[in-house]
C-alpha cells in the first residue's frame, strides 16, 4: 500500500483500498485487517492514480483514475479489467470518489372520492427531489420506478376533479405507496385556492394543459417546489414590508401562497402575467430563482420592449432561440441590464463562452443590481460609509445595493449584513421586483 486514497467496506466482508502510488486496488479482511490480495493489479487497463472506488449496481468495481481523468470498470468477482467506463471526455478533471445514485419506487392508485371508482388517465407529477410524471392506467394505478431517494410532493390531477397533493419520502430499494381520492368539482364547493385552473379538456391527455401558467419545460432543469416549507428559517427580514397589491382583479390561482408574507406581490404580479407558477396551481415560493426566470420577470415587470438579435441570432451559447427565456435574456442584454459570464467562468462549468448560465441561482447582489438598473434609480452612495459590513465599497454591486436599500426595495438579512451571495427565493424575487415596479 502506497499513498492510499479511497477505501470502502464491502458486503463480502472485505476492505477495498486504492493504492494511489502503485496504481492498484488492494483487499484486506475487514475484521482482522489481514492483507488478502492485490485485487486490481498495477496499472491494469491503464489505471493511473486510482483515487476513489465503489461497486456499481451491476456488482462490478468502478475506479476513478485521477491522473488519467477516466473511470475504469473491473469484474467485481475477479478484478479483471472490463472496460473504460468513462473515457477522457473533458468533463473529468482529477475525479474523486464516485457515487451511484440510489432509487426506490413510487406507486399508488387514484380513485373518485365519492364512488371509489379508479380514475383512468389522471396525471401524476412529482416535484422536490426531481420531477417525474406518469398517468394512471385502466385500473387507476400509477408506478414510477427509479425514483431517486428523497422527499417529493406528488400531485394528482384530472379534468373535473380538484387536484390533490401529498408529501412522500422515497427510500433506497423500497416501494412507497401514495394513493389519492379526488373530489369532483361538481360535487364540491370550490374555493378560489383549489379550483383547477386550465385543466385539460380531455382526461386522456395525461399532462395538464395549463400551459399559460406553467413554466415551459424546455430546459434541463428540475424545478422544485416545496409547499410544506412555510416558516422555519424563512428569511422574512429580507425584502421590506408588504406593499399594497395593486391590480388583483383576478383570482389567485396558487394554493401555496395563502399564508406567504409576500402574497400581495405574488398575486399582483401573477395578475399582470409577470410571474408564473411552477404549474397551474403552485407558485413554488420557496424554490430558488434562476437567472433565466429572473430575466423574464424583470423584463415583463418593467415592460421593456422585446429586443432580439436580427436573423434569430443568439448572444449566449446556452440561451438559444426557442428557450423559454430567450426573448427576455436578449432584451435585458440589449438594454444593458443583463450580462453573461466571462470565459473562465463559462469553461469552469463546461459551457461555451459567451454563456449566460440561465439555470444558475441568482444571488441577492445580482438581483438587486438588475432591479436598480432597470428601475433607473439615481445611484446613491452613503456619506457615512457602507451600510453592510459584507458589502464594502469595492464590491461590484456596492452602489446598487446601497441605492436599493435607500429606496426601501430590500433590507439586509440583519442590521449589518446583506448576504450578497445568497440565493433568492421565488417569493422574495416577486416582492423585490414588485417593490421596484411600484416605488418611485
Amino acid at each position, binding site marked *: *500500500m502506497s*499513498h*492510499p*486514497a479511497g*477505501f*470502502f*467496506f*464491502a458486503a463480502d466482508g472485505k*476492505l477495498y483500498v486504492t493504492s*494511489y*502510488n502503485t496504481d492498484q486496488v488492494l483487499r484486506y479482511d*475487514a*475484521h482482522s*485487517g489481514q*492483507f488478502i490480495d492485490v485485487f486490481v493489479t498495477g496499472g491494469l487497463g491503464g489505471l493511473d*492514480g486510482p*483515487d476513489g472506488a465503489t*461497486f456499481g*449496481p451491476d456488482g462490478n468495481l468502478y475506479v476513478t483514475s*485521477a*491522473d488519467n481523468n477516466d*473511470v475504469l470498470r473491473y469484474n467485481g468477482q475477479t478484478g479483471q479489467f472490463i472496460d473504460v*467506463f*468513462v473515457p477522457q471526455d473533458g468533463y*473529468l*478533471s482529477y*475525479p*474523486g*470518489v*464516485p*457515487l*451511484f*445514485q*440510489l*432509487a426506490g419506487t413510487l406507486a399508488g392508485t387514484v380513485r373518485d372520492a365519492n364512488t371509489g371508482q379508479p380514475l383512468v388517465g389522471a396525471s401524476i407529477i412529482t416535484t422536490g*427531489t*426531481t*420531477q*417525474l410524471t406518469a398517468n394512471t392506467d385502466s385500473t387507476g394505478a400509477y408506478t414510477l420506478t427509479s425514483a*431517486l*431517494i*428523497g*422527499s417529493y410532493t406528488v400531485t394528482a390531477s384530472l379534468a373535473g376533479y380538484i387536484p390533490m397533493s401529498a408529501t412522500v*419520502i*422515497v427510500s*433506497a*430499494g423500497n416501494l412507497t405507496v401514495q394513493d389519492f381520492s379526488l373530489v369532483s368539482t361538481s360535487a364540491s364547493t370550490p374555493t378560489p385556492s383549489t379550483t383547477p385552473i386550465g385543466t385539460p379538456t380531455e382526461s386522456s391527455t395525461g399532462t395538464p394543459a395549463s400551459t399559460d401558467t406553467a413554466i415551459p419545460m424546455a430546459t*434541463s*432543469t*428540475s424545478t*422544485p417546489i416545496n409547499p410544506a416549507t412555510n416558516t422555519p*428559517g424563512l428569511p422574512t427580514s429580507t425584502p421590506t414590508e408588504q406593499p399594497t397589491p395593486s391590480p388583483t382583479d383576478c383570482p389567485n390561482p396558487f394554493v401555496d401562497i395563502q399564508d406567504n408574507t409576500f402574497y400581495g406581490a405574488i398575486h399582483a404580479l401573477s395578475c399582470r402575467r409577470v410571474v408564473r407558477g411552477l404549474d397551474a396551481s403552485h407558485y413554488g415560493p*420557496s*424554490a430558488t430563482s434562476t437567472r433565466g426566470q429572473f430575466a423574464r420577470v424583470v423584463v415583463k415587470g418593467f415592460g421593456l420592449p422585446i429586443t432580439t438579435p436580427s436573423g434569430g441570432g443568439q448572444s449566449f451559447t446556452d440561451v438559444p432561440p426557442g428557450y423559454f427565456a430567450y426573448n427576455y435574456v436578449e432584451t435585458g442584454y440589449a438594454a444593458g441590464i443583463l450580462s453573461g459570464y466571462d470565459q473562465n467562468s463559462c469553461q469552469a*462549468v463546461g459551457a461555451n463562452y459567451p454563456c449566460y448560465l440561465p*439555470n*444558475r*441561482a441568482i444571488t441577492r447582489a445580482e438581483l438587486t443590481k438588475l432591479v436598480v438598473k432597470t428601475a433607473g434609480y439615481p445611484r446613491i452612495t452613503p456619506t457615512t460609509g457602507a451600510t453592510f459590513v459584507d458589502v464594502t465599497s469595492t464590491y461590484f454591486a456596492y452602489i446598487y445595493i446601497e441605492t436599493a436599500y435607500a429606496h426601501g426595495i430590500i433590507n439586509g438579512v440583519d442590521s449589518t449584513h446583506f448576504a450578497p451571495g*445568497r*440565493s433568492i427565493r421565488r417569493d422574495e424575487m416577486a416582492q423585490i421586483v414588485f417593490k421596484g415596479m411600484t416605488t418611485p
Partner: protein
Amino acid sequence: MQIHNFLRKGAVAVVIAFLLITTALLSSPSQAAPAVPTLGHSEGSSRTAPPPPRAINRPTSGSLPNAPLTSSLQMLIPNYMNNTIQGYDADTGAHVSIWASGNGLYGPLDAIYGPDGNIYASCHNGGDVLRYTNGGIFLGAFVRPGDGNLNGPFGMAFGPDGNFYVTSQNSNQVMRFNGQTGAFIDVFVTAGSGGLNYPTDLHFGPDNNLYVTSQDSNQVLQWSDRAVH
C-alpha cells in the same frame, strides 16, 4: 498534470503496512452489523442504504444546477480540478449532466448520501461541505468554511450515532459535526493521533469503529477508543 500535495505520487513509499492500532475490538465480529445494502450492490457500509429518513432539513437557499429531468440513475463524480460534479448514466457511462457547479463548489473530492436522502459533497479547497438533493438541487452549505477550523475536507461519513465525520486533511484531524444541523461538535481525532498523516477517506466499519486512510504513512488507521454507538 500538476501533482497535488494531497495526493503526492512518486515519493519513496516502501512500507506496506496495514496497521490496526488496536485489534482487540475487531476480534468480536458479533458487534452491530453494518447497514445492509438494499440495491443488491455492495458499496461501503456508510454510503449505501441510508438509515430510515429523518425529518428533512428545510433548505433556506438553493440553486438549480443542470440536473436533468431524467429518471435514469447516474454515477456522480466530483472533480477536484474543474470544480464540478459530473453526472454519467449509470448503465452506459454516457455523460448526462454537469450535476453540480458553482455555489462555492471548490475542489470537490467526495460525495456521499446523508441519512436524509440528500447528497453531501466535500470541498477540499473551499473548506466546506455542500448539500444537494438527490436531484441535484443545491441546498446550501452544510458545513461552512471555517467551521471547526476544517482545513481541506476529503472523506466523509455519517456515523452510527447520526453525527457527521470528515477528515481535515491539511490539519491531520477528523472533525465531528451535528448530523442534522451541521454545527461543529469537536475534533474527534486529534492531529497526528496514532500517526495520522494526510488523512484521505473515512468510513465506519462493521464494528462501528472509525477507519481512516493515512496517506503519507501508508496505513489505514483505527482507534480503539473511537467506536461510535
